[in-house]
């Protein structure tokens, strides 16, 4: 039994027909309940529920206060390499894209680490494209050994690994995994992943579970909103989070809601996700799974990010560059354009102004 079986339960479900039957009274009833079921959660994702956002927000805010309080953890991504053998039509690291490729050596990694650590950040997320030849697990292990001297928490956002490989990385100091399915709809997945090992839908889908089995501390999942109907994708993402949390109680499961940003891939059929859509997805999610933290990246504009804080955000990236070596020098080869270019100091100030406390350290190597 893996999450794929759960996914299959809804593979042929008629979402549109379901949504059409949802009434405003249904939504009001659901929001009175202490615990919201799967089907009720789906109703909260309906177009009808879009008119009840304020009520959903109040409920999500209260739940988030109880569970997480007035604190926001800050982290930043560090791109180690942009070599990639996949052809994903929505990504600038696409093997056909013609961008300049590079990979940091251990000395460069240390320089980036110093630059980031100087901003006060203590949690880091390291990223690579998928290229087991150029950036094998052994390379990631060496990178982590260097980074451990500068950071208290190290998460990875790299190609999917085996359970054994996740264990190896945890042994040297990795405590978190971020891996997005990108799109849960298997057919769309097949379309946008044109070539490369990422075409293996099931291997990627089960990666978070393999990390949970390896006892990874934090596992963060998500769908890249814009590749498919966001209501369906948000629904399946939450089912995935719920599946993992129920099965692996000791893992901190969190969910990101990345929206597709300008990139130099070929994908043109973007399903536009408005601000209010993203907010609805986030609120529905928080009402369904109050104990799951939400991560918001610098894909979103600064004003919008600030407004999202009280709605259930637990983690935010700050002082971000999405290019390899971007913290020490910039060469204009980013994975996607970021919208919030504020420094760590500026974001800390903005969080405090919202009545929240920016947290830089929330773990340590044991």
């Amino acid at each position, binding site marked *: 039994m893996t999450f794929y079986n759960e996914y299959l339960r809804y593979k042929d479900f008629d979402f549109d027909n379901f949504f059409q039957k949802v009434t405003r009274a249904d939504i009001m009833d659901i929001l009175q309940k202490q615990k919201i079921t799967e089907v009720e959660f789906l109703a909260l994702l309906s177009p009808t529920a879009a008119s009840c956002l304020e009520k959903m927000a109040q409920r999500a805010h209260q739940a988030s*206060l*109880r569970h997480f309080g007035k*604190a926001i953890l800050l982290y930043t991504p560090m791109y180690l390499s942009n070599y990639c053998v996949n052809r994903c039509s929505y990504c600038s690291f696409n093997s056909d894209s013609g961008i300049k490729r590079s990979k940091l050596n251990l000395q460069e990694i240390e320089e980036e680490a110093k630059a980031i650590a100087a901003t006060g950040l203590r949690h880091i997320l390291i990223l690579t494209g998928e290229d087991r030849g150029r950036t094998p697990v052994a390379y990631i292990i060496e990178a982590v050994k260097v980074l451990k001297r500068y950071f208290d928490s190290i998460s990875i956002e790299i190609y999917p690994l085996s359970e054994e490989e996740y264990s190896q990385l945890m042994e040297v100091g990795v405590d978190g995994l971020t891996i997005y399915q990108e799109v849960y709809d298997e057919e769309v997945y097949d379309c946008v992943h044109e070539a490369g090992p990422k075409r293996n839908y099931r291997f990627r889908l089960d990666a978070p579970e393999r990390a949970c089995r390896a006892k990874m501390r934090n596992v963060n999942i998500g769908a890249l909103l814009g590749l498919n109907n966001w209501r369906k994708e948000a629904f399946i993402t939450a089912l995935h989070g719920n599946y993992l949390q129920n099965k692996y109680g*000791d893992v901190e499961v969190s969910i990101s809601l990345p929206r597709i940003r300008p990139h130099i891939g070929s994908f043109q059929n973007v399903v536009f996700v408005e601000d209010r859509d993203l907010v609805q997805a986030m609120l529905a999610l928080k009402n369904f799974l109050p104990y799951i933290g939400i991560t918001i990246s610098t894909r979103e504009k600064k004003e919008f990010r600030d407004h999202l804080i009280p709605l259930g955000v637990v983690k935010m990236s700050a002082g971000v560059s999405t290019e390899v070596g971007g913290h020490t020098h910039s060469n204009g080869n980013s994975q996607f354009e970021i919208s919030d270019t504020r420094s760590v100091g500026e974001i800390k100030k903005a969080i*405090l102004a919202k009545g929240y406390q920016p947290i830089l350290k*929330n773990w340590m190597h*044991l």
Partner: protein
Amino acid sequence: MDCLTIGGVVLKSRLLIGTGKFSSNKTMTEAIKAADAQVVTMALRRVDLNGREENILQHIPENCILLPNTSGARNAEEAIRIARLARAMGCGNWVKIEVISDNKYLLPDNYETIKATEALVKEGFIVLPYMSPDLMVAKILAEVGAVAVMPLGAPIGSNRGIKTKELIQILIEEINVPIIVDAGIGKPSEAAEAMEMGAEAVLVNTAIATAQDSIKMAQAFSLAVKAGRLAYLAKVGLEKKLAEASSPLTGFLYEGEEK
């Protein structure tokens, strides 16, 4: 004077404060002062000795006893490692054991908590374990050397009050180390209730940290804890379902006897 002794230390305040979830370090400092708390718990994972303004320890008033907690520990082994780190980092030798392997309700793992408590007492720590109220577990914790036992009133952060009242009452009656009600207390009246029941102290965090005015709320809790304790010492009248006749039926047996 009515004082509480924990691990050989005499405390005047029976309100312990947690430091998570505050909107700023400044608010936290003021709330601790307003609560008149002497014991302050903080997650070791938040302590950053290399940080500057971010070091949470600098925001805890100096006269307070630090009670580092093992938040984030998923088993006894991790709790033990965190406790040792806390001591190595200069946080003293008090530790609140918190072992949680359930991320949904954040309920403590009593079995792993016993293991961690036993090991850390042997290493010379003053151990206060957070636990689900269970008589046998509390007995073992006291037996292996816990200086107090901290049963939850309701899940952490739930603000639901003392839902485990009957079980906590049994611990208060049967366990010979102080019972400190930790987690679930959402209102000062509930803190007073715990104290009236005979709890030796309460630990409050979320209710203060997430109140609109944390400082006022800290004061309110401080007063409530004092009121509850006074009421306990004054012997709260028993609850009765029926009105009791004020002219007793067996009074004639004692007529003529001196009162």
